[in-house]
Each structure stands twice: as C-alpha cells, then as structure tokens.
C-alpha cells in the first residue's frame, strides 16, 4: 500500500516537473523567430467590440486580416476558409498607437559612452544626410517592451545640431531596418534656433541667457540665415542636377551628399520637422517654412496653444510632446500642459500626442493621451491623437491609424479601454502578423517571479 502511495507521489512529481519544463520552454521559445518577425497568416477576430476610430464603433463585429492588410471589417464580414479564428468576445479591437517623437532603435541605454549604445546624434551642426534608417537596431529591447503596450509604429528621429538628420517611420516588428521601415526617409529634423531654453516667466529667457538679449537675437538670426542659405543652395543644386539631366551639353554639377539629401525637403515633397516649444520659436519656424516653401511639422509645441489661431490659419500640424511636462513658468497654471491638447483641438489645429521620449518610456503614450482627456480633450479625440492623427500628419492616413479595409493590419486587442493603465493587451498584430506578447520584461519576470 505504501509502495503504491510512493509510486503515486513519484508520478505526481514527474507530472509537476513535466509541466514546469513545458511552460519554461514556451516562455523561451516565445523569444524565437516569431518574436522578431511575428507569425504571418490569415486571421479572423470574431465577436469583438471594434473601435474603428475613423467611423462608428462596431459592437459585435469581425475583422479579417490577410496578406498583412485588413481585408474586411463589419458586423457580418465573411471569413475566408482556413482563417485562424480568434474569439473576441468581451474584447475590444483598436488600431495600434503611433508615436512621432521617438528615437526608437537608435538608443538602447541613455547613458553615453561605451557602456550604452547611442546613435542619436552625429558630430557637427548640419547632418541632413544622417539617416535614422541606417542605424535602426531591430534587436533593441525597447521595440518589444513598447509594442506589447499597444504602440505599433513610431517615427524614429536623430537629435542634436541644427539639422539633426532624417527620421524613419517604422513599424515595431521585423529583423532588419528594411522590414521595419514603412518610410525610410520620412522627415527632415531641424532644431529651430531659439533664444535659449527654458521658461521662468515673461522674462525667463534672461534667466537662462544670463546675458544680453540683443546678442541672443543676433546669434539666433545668424543660425536661421545659415539654414536659409543651405536650403537655397539645395534648391539650386536640385535645379542644376535636373537641368544637367535634361541637357547633355550642360556640365554636370559635382555630387554633394548634404545638398542632395535636402532636395526632396526643399521641394516640399517630404515634411520638415521643427523642434520648437516656445511660442516665438514656433511662430518663427512656421514663418521660415513658408518663406522657404517647406512642409512643416512642429515637434514639441509646449506653447502651441498660445498661438493656436496662427497655427490653424497656416495649417501647420503639431506633435505635442509635453502633456506630462512640468509647466515651463513659475506662474503657469498647474494644468497648463495637461490642457494644451484640448485647447489645440478646440481651436481646430491639427495635432497629435507623443511621449517625446527616446525609447524606454514610449510605452506610456496611452497615459499621456489619457491625461489630456482628463483635462478637456474628448476621449474619442484623445484616442485619435495617438492613432489616426499621427498617421495623417505623416501623410500615412490612408495606410494606418484606423480600422478600415485596405489598411495595414496594425491591431491591438484589449480587455478594456486602450488608454487605461489597468488594461491588458490580449493579442497584437503588426503588418498583419501575430506578435507574441513577450518582451525583455516578461522574460525577466518569468525567470524570477517564482524564485523560492
């Protein structure tokens, strides 16, 4: 009898160990090929609540994903044979979120030097030929931790200098920069010259400057002139190249990689992002862009609400990165930054919300939108501000940002409101590929949570 009991115990132990090893194996195999590239297939998410963003919500609908795209959406969408079915009962489907203010893939650990890796900033002031696309690291741990919180696309931008370089628009999935980038050269990034940073009241810049305002203005204007001259040179370079291409008798101008990289931007075929926060900087950037016939986007925009009518009149979009920033000035109202998105929206300014974080905190994008919604922005608008609006600002409104047939299938399936911190993500699709919900963080959690 006791022998039998011993056998039973042994069997129980074996089963226990077997199940432990299976689950451990699952955890590690999740970090395998599917972690990098997802799993391609035809999928049907059934009986889910669908927040299309562009149109009305669908209460009990189906979404069909095929060949990387959303093939059909509706209460009675027909499901192709062989589609893998996902039970969406009790769940909600949203388009993936998009953050236009990041440096994802360019930076792993903020700390500079040999201990981290940082590829955000080239040497010198003028680097339009530096392309984020070239330095994108698909194996950055931030890619995984960001997307499992529902952010599926981002603009990854270089930083520093006067012209930082060219940003890439990426989906957060893929083993190579080529697989990730939807638009490898998506925008030129310019730090629009200002009078010195920071706030501190109407006279705040004196505090930062500790010098003479006339000198500060001269220095700023000199930088703007430098920028103006460079862009005019690029225009001329483009014309000379075109002319030489049409007329073989003309001498072909020497190749200049800096000027060549600027040509699409001075011709207004691609957008130029101006980092600018204070009202006079934003105004200056917009006026400069009009003078040079550029296609401007303001990144930062802390004070944009103060000149909202001007921005609306000039139809310049703002990527708002400061929702959670402390107010710039001592006498600002406590909620001045929380409220600014709502004010821009009410004034009819095109805008979207971004974390403005290089990498680690991009996953907090939904909470920034949520804070704006707590302070005056309608909830539906807050959702658009992190989905459809950023897509539209980048000229990708026909491919991303909402749940519509034909769009890229970047979808997030949740058990609640996408913007709430308590909400869990249950399924994730990027480029129509199902992405396992694992990251460096879930991996370390699995490794240590049951340590006895």
């Amino acid at each position, binding site marked *: 009898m006791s022998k039998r009991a011993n056998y039973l115990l042994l069997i129980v132990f074996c089963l226990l160990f077997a199940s432990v090893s299976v689950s451990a194996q699952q955890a590690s195999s999740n970090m395998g090929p599917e972690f990098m590239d997802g799993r391609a297939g035809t999928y049907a998410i059934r009986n889910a609540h669908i927040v299309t963003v562009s149109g009305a919500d669908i209460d009990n609908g189906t979404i069909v994903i095929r060949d990387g795209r959303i093939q059909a959406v509706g209460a009675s969408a027909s499901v192709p044979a062989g589609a893998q079915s996902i039970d969406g009962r009790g769940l909600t489907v949203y388009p993936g979120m998009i953050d236009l203010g990041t440096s994802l893939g360019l930076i*792993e*650990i*903020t*700390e500079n*030097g040999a*201990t*981290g890796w940082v590829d955000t900033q080239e040497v010198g002031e003028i680097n339009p030929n530096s392309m984020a696309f070239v330095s994108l690291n698909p194996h950055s*741990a931030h890619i995984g*931790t960001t997307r499992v919180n529902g952010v599926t696309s981002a603009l990854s931008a270089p930083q520093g200098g006067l012209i930082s370089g060219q940003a890439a628009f990426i989906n957060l999935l893929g083993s190579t920069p080529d697989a990730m980038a939807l638009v490898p050269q998506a925008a030129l990034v310019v730090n629009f010259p200002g009078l010195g940073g920071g706030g*501190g*009241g*109407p*006279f705040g810049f*004196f*505090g930062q*400057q*500790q*010098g*003479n*305002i*006339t000198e500060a203005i001269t220095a700023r204007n000199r930088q703007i002139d430098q920028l103006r001259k460079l862009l005019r040179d690029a225009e001329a370079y483009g014309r000379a190249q075109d002319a030489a291409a049409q007329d073989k008798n003309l001498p072909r101008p020497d190749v200049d990689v800096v000027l060549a990289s600027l040509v699409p931007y001075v011709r207004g075929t691609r957008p130029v992002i101006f980092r600018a926060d204070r009202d006079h900087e934003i105004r200056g950037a917009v006026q400069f862009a009009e003078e040079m016939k550029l296609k401007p986007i303001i990144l930062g925009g802390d004070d944009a609400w103060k000149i909202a009518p001007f921005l609306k009149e000039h139809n310049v979009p703002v990527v708002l990165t400061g929702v*959670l*920033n*402390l*107010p710039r*000035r*001592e*006498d600002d*109202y*406590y909620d001045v930054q929380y409220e600014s998105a709502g004010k821009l929206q009410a004034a009819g300014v095109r805008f979207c919300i971004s974390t*403005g*974080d290089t*990498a*680690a*905190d991009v*996953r*907090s994008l*939904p*909470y920034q*939108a*949520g*804070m704006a*919604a*707590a*302070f005056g922005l309608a*909830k539906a608008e807050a959702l658009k501000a992190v989905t459809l609006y950023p897509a539209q600002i980048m000229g990708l409104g026909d491919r991303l940002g909402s749940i519509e047939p034909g769009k890229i299938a970047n979808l997030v399936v949740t058990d609640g409101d996408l*913007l*709430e*911190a*308590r*909400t*869990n993500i249950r399924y994730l699709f990027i480029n129509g590929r199902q992405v396992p919900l694992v990251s*460096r*963080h879930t991996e*370390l*959690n699995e490794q*240590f*949570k049951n*340590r*006895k």
Partner: protein
Amino acid sequence: MRKLCAIFLLLALLAPGWSLPARAQGRRAGGTRAESAAAGDTLIRNATILTASHGTLQNADILIRNGKITAVGPNLKAPDSARVIDATGKFVTPGIVDCHSHTMLDAINEGSLSVTSMARIRDVLNPTAPNIYRELAGGVTTINALHGSANSIGGQNAVLKLRYGHPAADFVFQGAPPGIKFALGENPKRSNGFNLPGTPRRYPATRMGVEETIRDAFIRARNYKRGWDDYRAAQTRGDKTAIAPRRDIQLEPLVEVLEGKRYVHSHCYRADEIVMLLRIADEFGFKVRTFQHVLEGYKVAKEIAAHGAGASVFADSWGYKLEAYDAIPYNAAIMTRAGVVVSVNSDSDERARRLNIDAAKTMKYGGLSEEEALRTITLNAAIQLGIDKWVGSVDVGKDADLVIWTSHPFSVYARVEQTYIDGTVYFDRTQDLARRADMEREREQLEKAEANRPAGDGPPPGAPRGRRPASHHADDEDTDGGNDNR
C-alpha cells in the same frame, strides 16, 4: 536690478496657491501635532471610499473634526456648523505618500565627502517651490524628502506634509522617525562624473569601495558609541574622572542607526549591492528600513523579505543607464508576493503629480489587487516611514489627509477635485479655476507696467543670479531616473 527683483517677487506672489483659503486662515498647522488641529469640521458625503486598509466603501461618508477622521461609514451625522461636501459619484482616497522626493529642496548632494551623515535636508527646504502646489493637485500630501545619491551616506532626510503657504518649519511631519539616505552602485562611485584634470578622484570609485566606505563609517560609529557607553557607565558608577568623548556630528546619526532610532533609506539598483548592504546591516546589527529604487529587488526578493526591509520602487522606469537595464515593471508585484512591503515613489516633481497611474500599473504588471496597488502609494509608504499610525489610510483616528477624485483614481481620466491635509483644503480645483481671471488681470497689469524697461536704449538687465530654481532636477548630479527633463 532691484526693480526686476520686485517684479519677480510679485510674479511669485501671483503663483497659484498663494491665495488659498488655507493661507488666509493664517499660520495654523504649527509646530506640534495638537496645534495642527484647528480646521473646522467637514463632512464628505456619499463617496466611494478606497480606504487602503479595509476595502472599498460605497455611498459612505467621512467626518473630519479637529483635523482628524472621526467617523467613516454610511449616513453620518455632522454638527450644524460642519461644512458638507457632496461627493456623490466621486472617489476618496487617503492622501498620497511619496516615499522618495526631492521637491522643495534647494540642494540635494553634499558632494565633497562620501559620508555626509551630518548634512540635513530640513535645512534646505524652500516652502515657496511651485511644484509643491502642483503635487497637491495630484493628490500628494506627504513626502519623504531625501538627499541625492552622490554619497555612500548622503544625509538626514525630512518627512514633510505639503502645507503649502506656510513657513518651512510647518512642513515637518511631527513624530516621524528620523531617517538617513544611503546610496549604492554607480552614483556614489562618481566614477562617471566630471573630474578636473590633475585632481585626484574621490574615493570610492568602485562598488568595493562603496562597501568599504559604509563599513568604515559604521566601525567608527560603533567605536564612538562604545566611547559614550563607557563614559555613561562610568558616570553611573559615580566615577568623576571619566572624560566625555569629543562630540562627532558625523557619527551621531550612525549611532542612532545602530540603536534602531534612525531609518536607513538606501538608493540601490543591482541585486549584488542590495545583498551587500544586507550583509553590512547584519554584521553591525541594524535594519535597512527601505531600499529605494531597488530595480533588481525582484531578483533577491526573498533576501529582502527575510531581512524585513521595505522596497520603494518606480512603477516602470528603466533603461536610463546600464545598471537600470534589468529593471522590470513586475518588480513591485514580485516583491509584494515575496512578503516585502512595497511602495511606488516618484523621485521626480513631474511624476509625483500622477502617482495614482503609476500605482495602477502594478495591477497590470503582476496582478496586484486594487487595494494592494493603492497601498503602494499610501499605507505601505506610511509604514516604511513609520507614520502609519497617523496617515496612509482612511481610518478613524488618523489625520484627515484625503483626496477627492472625479472618478476612480486608477483611471487615466481621473482628476483631483480637492486635497486635504489635517482637514484643511490645500488644493481645490474649483477655487483654482475661479482665481484665474483675477490672476490674468493682475499679470496684464504687471506686464504693462514694464518695471524693468531700461532707461535709454540700453539692453534690458539680466535676471538676478541668486534666484532659487523653480524645480530641482534630481538628475543634475544624480541620474536615478528622475524624468523631470522629459
């Protein structure tokens, strides 16, 4: 120059919060706990109360008398004179206790020596810092004001109630046990910091040296304590020839640590340095009260639990330097399940304004219950600071430090309506909004006056140099994840 100073002074006076009713009542929350009980009676009616100690009460009332919570429950009777706040549809929580803050500090690192236990935070409080008000507007009522992490032993902390509008001395939390900041890992090493060429580097420069620095300090403190013990014993024996040891204000706080009278709050990241400090504590016979940040605490949760130390963490900050690369948002949940008392802190004037959302993240990452999550920013932090008999939960007898929210405090859509300390309103959104038209008018008048316009054509003068910073950036010298610059 003098005129410009005057303008700044006027603008500072304009800052929100200065005309709070609390201030109009004059100096009130004075030096002693008994004295701080002057507020009128208040009845908060018909709220959803998240008590943090005994669950959630629906449609319940809270009676506040003399700054204390005197009753909690349905259909309470209030004296006729009591102010009644209708909180129907609203949520009430205890005031948030932020267990790691540098708010209202004019300085945080005495970076000359690595053992500066004599330096006191309460000597550098700036009671006019605007971020105090901004944090009240996020529901924070008590903070643990700590030194930075430049030194192995940084200095004496101050537990403060955010009694904005009062002099600095009134902020001090009466009865809170004293504490001291320690720091382990990269920051006290200073090896990554700037060093003038030709000057020697400050010791320590490795984790080995940090351990040795702390050990050396405690060896000296132990000897110092023996000297005093021997002297007192001799006095008791009636030995008139005994000579008192020379007083040492660097070692006195460490003797208090050895005697269990002063809490150790230690900045740390990596698992190895956490167990290092546990070894030292065991060797010298003291307890580590809290590990701060403790990013890899989840790797040694059982060791921390066995020692009885608390852990005060970021909700989800990570990757801002190499020693923060293994930080995971599951940290709070794993340590909680291992039996550690865990709090979630800000270490940032910015993040302190939304600790409610950081607490909510502990439900998502690791599945803490709603009450466990709420405790990370209230009761657990109060326990870690030894002030839980006064604050940290909605219980009869505790200080009336309360927050009224428009919706569930874990919702991103929630806003703080009112924040109470000792029954007095220190933030009221309705009043804040009502003041704005007046403030705009006043601002316009001041700007029109152009008091600093220069005579003639010369450039305007620069700003006064000695001006206090509007906010302290903890990461100026001390990169421990404060995201103030974001």
